[in-house]
């Protein structure tokens, strides 16, 4: 079963970090990613540009409206994701707990719908 792990962190903290600090956190991420690639749990994963680069699009009455910024202003922002393969929620939680963002922000774990199992 696939789970999407959504990484939320305070992006302002990232902006104030020094190069060696950022390198250390990135090192943690590379080690984590390497670990779940080796265990076969890795499906995909990306880091996102900060929310200042975000654009929100809505179509109303057939007309596309774009606004600057993320869809909601929050204290912690979506900064990246991992799509993982896990046999159940316990395994997914164990993986999520190893993501560096879980230590500083939080990780939301969402099961992915398997349409082949739907009626």
């Amino acid at each position: 079963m696939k789970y999407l792990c959504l990484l939320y962190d305070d992006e302002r903290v990232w902006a104030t970090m020094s190069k060696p600090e950022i390198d250390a956190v990135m090192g943690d991420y590379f080690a984590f990613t390497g670990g779940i690639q080796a265990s076969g749990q890795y499906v995909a994963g990306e880091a996102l540009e900060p929310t200042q680069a975000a654009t929100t699009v809505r179509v109303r009455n057939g007309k596309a409206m774009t606004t600057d910024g993320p869809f909601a202003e929050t204290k912690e922002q979506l900064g990246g994701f991992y799509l993982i393969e896990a046999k159940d929620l316990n395994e997914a939680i164990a993986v999520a707990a190893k993501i560096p963002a879980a230590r500083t922000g939080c990780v939301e774990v969402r099961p992915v719908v398997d349409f082949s199992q739907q009626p």
Partner: protein
Amino acid sequence: MTPDADAARQAVDAVYRADSRRVLATLIRLLGDFERAEEALHDAVTAALQQWPVEGVPANPRAWLVSTGRFRAIDAIRRRARQQASLGALADELERQAAAPPDDGVDDPAVDDDRLRLIFTCCHPALPPEARLALTLREVCGLTTEEIARAFLTSPSTVAQRIVRAKAKIRDARIPYQVPAASDLPGRLDTVLHVVYLIFNEGYSATAGDTLTRADLSAEAIRLGRLLVALQPEPESQGLLALMLLHEARRDARTDGAGDLVLLEDQDRGRWHRPAIAEGVALVEQALGSRRVGPYALQAAIAAVHAEAPSSAATDWRQIIGLYDVLLRVEPSPVFALNRAVAVAMADGAAAGLALVDALLAQGALATYHFAHAARADLCRRLGRHDDARVSYQRALTLVKQEPERRFLERRLAALT
């Protein structure tokens, strides 16, 4: 109905009452789904009502129910597979598992593990706390949604909705039916112990209603507590089981012939159940010896001091105050602070206790807790301040929800001069 048929029907009833939850827990493991398992249990019981009167009661009724339920479920999945192709593979897989010889899921000595698995699923931290309690009472203890609603002062539709949502999350997020690995156990145990504690409390001191206690709920909680201690002798599991046993030991002495409340100091200690006290005290000693002492073990230690005292006057109140001090450091709670104040009143006199109770009430957290006002009333009464006592008894009476406690407070109020 023939006498044989009648006996068979009674046998179905008896097996259902004694074993339906264990059968359900095993079916949930075998079928991997609550809904499917409940349907299978229902089908198996229906089949038993038809077949046992004719064919006789099987040698192992519980095994019969599990096996019948399991195969009826596979048949039902096969029928549905005609509309939904993906179910065919599931039916094949369940059939393959059923054909594997070693696991008939019943005579396995580890069958109680199915109930443990189910408790850990129902109390999974990914479920909302109020859903954990409702789901455990429904699925593990077999209470109806109406009974759960009554016990926790909410509506049956709220309880039903919590259970439905929790089951949907278990299915959709795939919360597994498994006892956590030893390394994860301490973290996962907290939510389970808390639910068992709430079940026991509801049985020991029902929040509302005509009777003071519900022995069936307490017995269920103690049974779950034993399963947890058998799983792994974690100090807090031992502490909780000890706490429950030490309270349960006093059950018969807590009410008189009329069903009225008898205070600890007035109880006939000869009616306390000594074997349960001995078992509880031994568990407290093990838990305290572990050096990882938690709130359940400390509460149990306090209960053990009471249980071993020959009378209220001969109780080691100093030790009880000391244990409350440690407990309050581990888990600051106004209710524990209130209990400590009552112990101080026993050791140092009512005036000392009253000062502490008044300070706690002034903080506000206990303003709607009827015991706080009842405790204040009792201390004022002992100090001869009857007008103050009257006000506090009346305040307690507006908050109390349980009939025997109401009668107790009314008697005390009427006895004031």
